[in-house]
């Protein structure tokens, strides 16, 4: 049965009663090519002009490597933290009715709308040595602003809505019956959450994670204010690209960009594979 489904998946879908398959597919391809594919191809093309040795020289430059490590490392940590808090926020919004719920629901979307530079400046002033929160962390020996911790906090800010907004609708769909079934079978609250609810949400959580992660890897505006931008310590890869551009080192900039592109694509591709696999198993969306 599964192999049948997989085989059928490769065939063109039969046209339905609604016409326009050719039109919409053509539009999709043209649109994707203009907006996404051609610029990205240009990127690869430009960095290819460096030749392998030139490319490798830039790729293995300690400053590049560190910037990439910081970018992907902080993005990963931020996305993981967002998964935990995003799921809790979604849970509260879905499960409970309380005054101000709609307001909180709306606040979750703010990071989408707010210019990220504003968020970066606000977070910096909060977490700086003399900021509202920073002054309490300073005596404890915790420095947030101008360190990777600061970068992570900025990335948590921009990534939160992605997790909440992908998990929330799926959570709303969970029937109360499923939880009750677990309870009648003897599962306590904790077992119900860890063995029944969370595994059921896993595909949505994974999507939210991927989106938050992808967004965080590419984030620039909010990070540069709070990062301090010390080479080798708190300099992110997008910033390094801008620095190279300002030095008119276009090839260097595109090389770093190409590496980021490759890494991001690989990670998103793997996440998508996991998604497709779990979708086929659990029958979501079929």
């Amino acid at each position: 049965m599964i192999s049948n489904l997989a085989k059928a998946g490769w065939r063109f879908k039969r046209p339905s009663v609604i016409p326009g398959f050719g039109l919409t597919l053509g539009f999709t391809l043209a649109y994707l090519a203009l907006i996404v594919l051609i610029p990205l191809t240009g990127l690869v093309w430009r960095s290819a002009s460096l030749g392998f040795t030139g490319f490798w020289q830039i790729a293995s430059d300690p400053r590049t490597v560190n910037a990439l490590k910081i970018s992907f490392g902080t993005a990963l940590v931020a996305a993981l933290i967002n998964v935990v808090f995003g799921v809790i926020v979604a849970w509260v919004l879905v499960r409970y009715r309380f005054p101000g719920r709609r307001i909180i629901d709306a606040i979750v979307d703010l990071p989408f709308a707010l210019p990220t530079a504003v968020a970066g400046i606000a977070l910096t002033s909060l977490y700086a040595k003399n900021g509202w929160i920073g002054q309490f962390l300073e005596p404890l020996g915790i420095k947030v602003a101008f360190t990777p911790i600061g970068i992570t906090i900025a990335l948590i800010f921009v990534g939160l809505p992605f997790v909440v907004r992908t998990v929330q609708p799926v959570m709303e769909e969970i029937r109360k019956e499923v939880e009750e079934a677990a309870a009648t079978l003897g599962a306590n609250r904790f077992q119900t959450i860890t063995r029944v609810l969370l595994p059921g949400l896993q595909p949505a959580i994974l999507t939210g994670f991927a989106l938050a992660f992808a967004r965080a890897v590419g984030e620039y505006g909010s990070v540069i204010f709070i990062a301090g931008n010390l080479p080798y310590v708190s300099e992110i890869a997008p910033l390094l690209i801008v620095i190279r551009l300002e030095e008119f080192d276009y090839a260097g900039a595109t090389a770093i960009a190409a590496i980021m592109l490759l890494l991001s694509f690989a990670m998103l591709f793997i996440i998508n594979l996991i998604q497709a696999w779990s979708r086929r198993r659990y029958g979501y969306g079929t």
Partner: protein
Amino acid sequence: MDVRVSGVRKEFDRFPALHDVSLEINSGELIALLGPSGSGKTTLLRLIAGLESPTEGKVFFGDEDASLKSVQERNVGFVFQHYALFRHMTVIDNVGFGLKVRPNSSRPSSDEIRRRSSELLDFVQLSGLEKRYPAQLSGGQRQRVALARAMAIEPRILLLDEPFGALDAKVRKELRRWLREIHDKTKHTTVFVTHDQDEALELADRVVVMSQGRIEQIGTPDEVYDKPNSPFVYSFIGESSKIDVRVENGELWLADRRIGLKSDLPDGNAWLYFRPHDVALVKDSDACITGTVVASRRVGATRRVELELGGNAERIEIGISADHPAKEMSGIAFRPQHWRVFPRS
């Protein structure tokens, strides 16, 4: 396991769903809670399971007061209307779930869980589908998985909420017979909720007829069908016709005519209930019900005629033999063979 529900009342936000319901279920019985939607039957089932707690009253399992116990501690098998299978688990993991979440001290080994789960799947005739996911099963198969999952915890009682509600008519009939067989084999005390009277009458040892949060009648299928004890049961189970009559000196009168039926109700207005097919045609003699045929239909082996009763332009239906030459506007005289009279209040 005997189950005793005693004086249970349940309110949702001050809206009463059950009024003072008492019910005794004997060990090994198969009981149907039958009623229209909104009659409180599902609420009663959920109260027994512990998914709701009563506003007043108690539920006993044997001699022990189950009201004090949580759902988890009650150890009941509950099959939900839409099965509520865990869709991220395979069939066999669904069935074994109840055993896997037991505390270490009472949890069987994983081999044992696996063995018992496949045994149950065998029992519900689903062997070979262990590795499937719920999304890959038909409705009837999901129903069986849900039942196997509920039985895996060796429940003290088995509760089923509209077990066949979401299935098509053919599968429904099959599963109905199959559930009866399963019950006869396992002898679980079983309570199921249904709004389908055929299902209740065919399957259950005893039927509990409910309406508007009250139990109207408890009895064997024969009792509730042949001796309904209220106008509601009379009209809800099987077909019925009712006539507006008057009791005078122990006799029933329709307008100015005696029907020829006796009643020991006090004088006053009353409803006469009878089954449309359970009538005897009589010659237009002194004491009978007479009416004019206004419509006549062939229904299966009998003819169903709609009569207009002279006095008050009331219309009723009766069933007569198919070869009766009932023409429109002709007169028919009959007398119910089994009937009941309920005072009009």
